[in-house]
Each structure stands twice: as C-alpha cells, then as structure tokens.
C-alpha cells in the first residue's frame, strides 16, 4: 500500500510534504515490479510475458559476464587482443538484445525481476 501512486496519497497521510509529489510518483512508478509474480497465461500475452522473462535472464547473464570481464581488465589480466575480442562479443550481444527487445516491444526498464527484500535483480 505504501507503494501506491504518491500523487494520490490523502493529505492526512502526509507527515512530511515535499511539495512536488509528482516527482515521487514518477520514481515509485518506476520502482514497481517490472515482472508480475506470475506469467500472464492468456494466449495473446503469454508470448510477450515469456520473452520478457527469458530476455531478463539473458540480460542478467550478459551483465555478469561483462562485469567479470571488466574486473579482469581492471586487474590487468587480459591481453590487448583478448580485450578486443571480448569487446566485439559484448557489442554484438548488445545489438542482438536490442533487436530482440524491439521484436517483442520491450523497453530496458521492463527487463527486471523483483526479489522482494533483496531488491531488483538488475
């Protein structure tokens, strides 16, 4: 309930009024769970729902691999040609992800999972 649209909070619930509630409403809207607890099983929505879930997991793996590569670059354990090859790979993966998102009509911020008290997956 405390996550509902901040612009609709009754005045008697405002213990500290920051003036512009719209700014909070915008952020809280973005903070909402991008993926529902269950996949929408209606025939029209199921393909997009599954695509969203699968692309979220691919994006998670992509980010994990990329961060591992960045740590190795920072640590100086990669040769120049290895950095070049990894960069090319991640660039291609990035482009491919953009294509898939476009096909299924998904935005970057939609690819996420809410892990409850742990926060968002990505």
């Amino acid at each position, binding site marked *: *309930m*405390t996550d*509902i*649209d*901040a612009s*609709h*909070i009754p005045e008697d*619930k*405002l*213990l*500290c*009024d*920051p*003036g*512009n*509630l719209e*700014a*909070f409403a915008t*952020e*809280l809207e*973005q*903070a909402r769970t991008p993926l529902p607890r269950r996949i929408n099983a209606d025939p029209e929505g199921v393909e997009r729902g599954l695509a969203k879930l699968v692309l979220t997991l691919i994006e998670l793996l992509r980010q994990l691999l*990329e*961060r591992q*590569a*960045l740590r190795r*670059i*920072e640590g100086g354990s990669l040769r*120049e040609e290895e*950095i*070049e*090859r*990894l*960069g*090319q*790979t*991640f*660039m291609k993966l*990035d*482009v491919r992800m953009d294509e898939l998102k476009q096909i299924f009509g998904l935005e970057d911020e939609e690819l996420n999972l809410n892990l*409850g*008290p742990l*926060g*968002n997956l990505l």
Partner: protein
Amino acid sequence: MIYLYAITDRPEAALPALPGLEGAPLISLTYRDVAAVASLGTAPGVSTKLSSLEAVNIWQHEAIVEALMSDRTVLPVRFGTVLADEAALHSILKAQYAGFIADLEWVYSRVELSVQVLWDSDGQTPTDGSAKDINCQRSEVSGRAYMLARLTEEQQAQACRQQAETLASGIRLPLERLAVENTHQVLVTPRLLLKAAYLVDRERMAIFREEINNLSLAYPTLRFLCTGPWPPYNFVSNRETNLLGDNDD
C-alpha cells in the same frame, strides 16, 4: 471465491460499515481468537475483477483495512489475495494460527511509516562517449574502446552507489533508533535514493515526524516524503506469502 483483507484480533468486534470490493458485504471468519475479514465473490471471473490493479480498488481495500485498524490489531493482507472458499480460509487460519498470534502481538499498537528520499545524482549518467554511443558506431570503433567505455561507466556507477549508501546510512540511522523494525532499499531507481518503511510504536509517531523534519533541514538538497500511519504491510510479508501459497489461483 473469497477476497481477503486482513487477519485481526478481537473477532467479537463489529465489522466496519463499509462495502467490500465489487459491493460485496464484509464477512468475518473466526478461528479461536483471530478473525479473517473478507468478502465473497459470486460471479464467474470475479477473482480477476477483484484483483484488478485499479486505484479505486486499492484504496477501497486500504479503507477497509484502516477501518479495522481503528479498533483492533491488524495483519494486512496484500491487495488482490483471493482464496477458493471459506474452507480454504479456515484451513489457513488453523494451520497458521500460532504465526498469526505472534505477528499480532508484534504489531500491536504499532504502525508503519513510509519514507522516500529523492536526490539529484547529477553527472553520474555517462553521456558522451558511453559504451552505448560507441556501439551505435561500432563499424568504426574497436572492441577495446567499447570495453574501456563500459569500464568508465561501471566506475562512475560504483562511485555513485557508494555516495548513495553513505547518504542513505546517515538518514537511516536516526530513524532506525525510533523504530522496532525497518526495511529499506537504496537506489531502487537512479533518483530514488532511499525507500524505507519503519514499524513504529504509535506513541512515537510525533517524534519520528520531528526527526524527518530535522533530516530535511540537515540535508537541504534532498527531498523527503514521509507518509503514514499505514497498516504494517511490510512487516507481515512472510505470512502474506504463505497466504498466497497455492490457494489463490
């Protein structure tokens, strides 16, 4: 189908004179000294309608839970929780009775206060020469340039995160001293520095509010939103998950 609003103590207390969702009357189902407040749905597909995430439905759910909170202790149930029938609800009350009693004792005479803090993390979002920009012209640039741009972005993001954690910590500590339990998240979105909920003794609400005002003065560049009192939604979450279990589909 049966739509659930809350688990409460004082089962003998009269139900609020409010209609339930879809205009259905409120009912109370008692097990020993706890009660479940619900409303019945009869039409086919009613569960979908009842859980429809519309502001009017959410506020109606909230109004019922708050009305209950005015004269009894309440374990609010997440909006949209639908069970098969009264028998299913009764078996949950029976199976989780000890947990409900423990939770009711824990939240007795306590309320949830919500705090959100916005900041302006200027300069933290890479613009010129970011990895994304470089990738847009990738036929002309090297993989190495892309990785170095990504490295810069990651370093900036990490510095931003550290700054946010330090600021959030300074805000959280005085508030946590006034609460018996709390939950918080830092940077849920790039501008939402802190999103927190505090379980506070009802009589300490005024002190909590005063502390928020002090923090607003101490951090003039941040914007604070503090709301409440709310039913303790964030402090009965495990119970809520169990309630949802296999019974709501």
